[in-house]
């Protein structure tokens, strides 16, 4: 059973699902966050667009390789949440 997600990770997961639902023209509830991206029909162009969407929304940089390392919405959201948390922490330390 999954432990509870932190709010940021949950929000990122939701954003990914909604964005892919729009791009893939499928209802969000049919998009399994634990399915590999290829199984969802996310090809390399779509994965690039997804990363760009997250980059712009969260104001962080995401190299394209992370799609290979974190090949599901759940894994990607977890990683991106971590990235953002450390960015924010860095910012606070600098500030």
């Amino acid at each position, binding site marked *: 059973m999954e432990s509870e997600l932190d709010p940021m990770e949950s929000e990122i997961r939701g954003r990914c699902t909604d964005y892919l639902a729009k791009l893939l023209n499928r209802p969000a509830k049919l998009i399994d966050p634990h399915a590999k991206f290829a199984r969802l029909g996310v090809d390399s162009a779509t994965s690039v667009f997804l990363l*760009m969407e997250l980059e712009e929304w969260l104001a962080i940089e995401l190299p*394209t390789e992370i799609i290979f390392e974190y090949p599901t919405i759940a894994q990607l959201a977890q990683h991106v949440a971590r990235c953002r948390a450390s960015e924010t922490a860095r910012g606070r330390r600098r500030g």
Partner: protein
Amino acid sequence: MAERYEPKATPREHPISLADLLRHRATEQPHDRAYVFLSDRGNEQAPLTFADLYRRAHALAGSLLDRVKRGDRALLLFPPGLDFVVAFFACVLAGVIPVPMMIPRRASSRDAANAILADCSPRLAVTTRGVATTRPDVIERFQAVEFEWLILEQATQTTKPNVCVAASKRGDIALLQYTSGSTSEPRGVMVSHGNLLDNSEMIRLALGNTRASTFVSWVPHYHDMGLILNILQTLYLGALCVLMAPVTFMQRPLTWLRAIHTYRAEVATAPNFAFDLCVLRFRAEQMRDIDLSSWKLALNGAEPLRADTLDRFGSTFAPYGFNANSMYPAYGLAEATLLVTGGHRGSGPITRRVSRAELQKGRVAAPTRPDDGQVLIGCGQPLVGEHVAIIAPDSRRRLEVDSVGEVWVSGPNVAQGYWQNAGATASTFRAQIEGEGGKYWLRTGDLGFLDQSGELFVTGRIKDVIIIRGMNHYPQDIENTVQNVHPALRRNCGAAFTTLEENGREKLVVIQEVERTYRSEIAVAELVASIREAVVNEHEVNADEILLIAPGALPKTTSGKVQRNLTRTIWLDGLLEVAK
């Protein structure tokens, strides 16, 4: 009124081969930068001057001739960057035939790459140390008798330092292009030195380029438009070519525009979808201080052009100095080396509003009702030295102006044929017009019409190819991938096709018959997801709709071949029997 471009008669050298051309450039302008590659942030990496290029290519040519001989084929598997350019010209100097190839995707079965290997029997594949390290699966997978890998960085100094490279003649094959042809029936277009030089001259005249015309491109070097219209054209002109990786463009489309601004580029080419992507990703803060006024030729080719794309791009970037008259539609295909028709420099595209209903019947007429109108964009006029004819596919008779038929081409840019495929070469490259005697024509498989002024409008296709983001995909390859997923998916009982959505997007639809015996055991959702995964892994495209149907539900010919067009029609009408 748009300034008319008048081609100036300039004294031209008369190189008889690409090797001549390269030597000429290295002698005439040794220190001029020939190629520059930009990183994903738009930073310049070590540039190549014409002399550098010649020196490195010559050294590598020696290494090639240590291993293979003139006329042998060499696969070139390179990531984006300038190493490809060096390797390509090394082949040219050695008289070895280069076969540019996309590096197979990690998760693919590599059937397509293997098909090319089997078709042209290369003796060698050249790649970089980076590829060998990060993709040992590729090296391992492509092994054959009398075949070896040459890692660029390890190519030791040739045993023949002053390799005397025998001269190539115009008729010699300079390049094998495998951009047409499916996995099951690969087609290597044989492009001669003469073809390349002639099409380059035709392009020069049509575009009005000079040595000062800088080009910026992200189109892959294994795509004919990337290679011939950019890499080879700038060499032909003695101009600078600025290259970027395709993924750099896809991730940050505005970096392409920024590079056009930075290098004061005159020419930048892309398929239609790329112009839409720039509009989608437009952010004013990223466009600050960008001036696109040097951009005189926004060549749009490789897939059908859309009027709304041109309008949106024009209006979005006009405030940054982009002149809508720079939009330059073009049409071509690998079998004609590259370019067949092109617009008039500085005049912008020619559009025509026709009746959609009449066009579906192959006739060009004015719309009778407002909602019947469809805007078509002209692809330009035939290039100097070339003829384009519209032919009825069945009778092979020449059709008159404003009638839709198959586009046929003749001219010095028509390639020599398909590698070791006499049958396909004869039917594609040696067609004759009924009642017009012995001249041979190239059948393009595209449909279109010529208007009164000689402008070509491409309206459709007879050949079975799907074009997504400027790349060709073959329905039979996609269907085969689907059928390989599970034994329940009946062999030769599938159809892949596209339909055009309202917003101009091509939607890929896959319809597949499922064996009765398995139907109770399979979770349909799982099967559909597996199919989706296989299509992405093998072809890098998403099947937007996957429909599993009852056996026998697909319309077939008497010989059992699936009728794709009819399937599309029945599907659009909602009449296909879904598997329960």
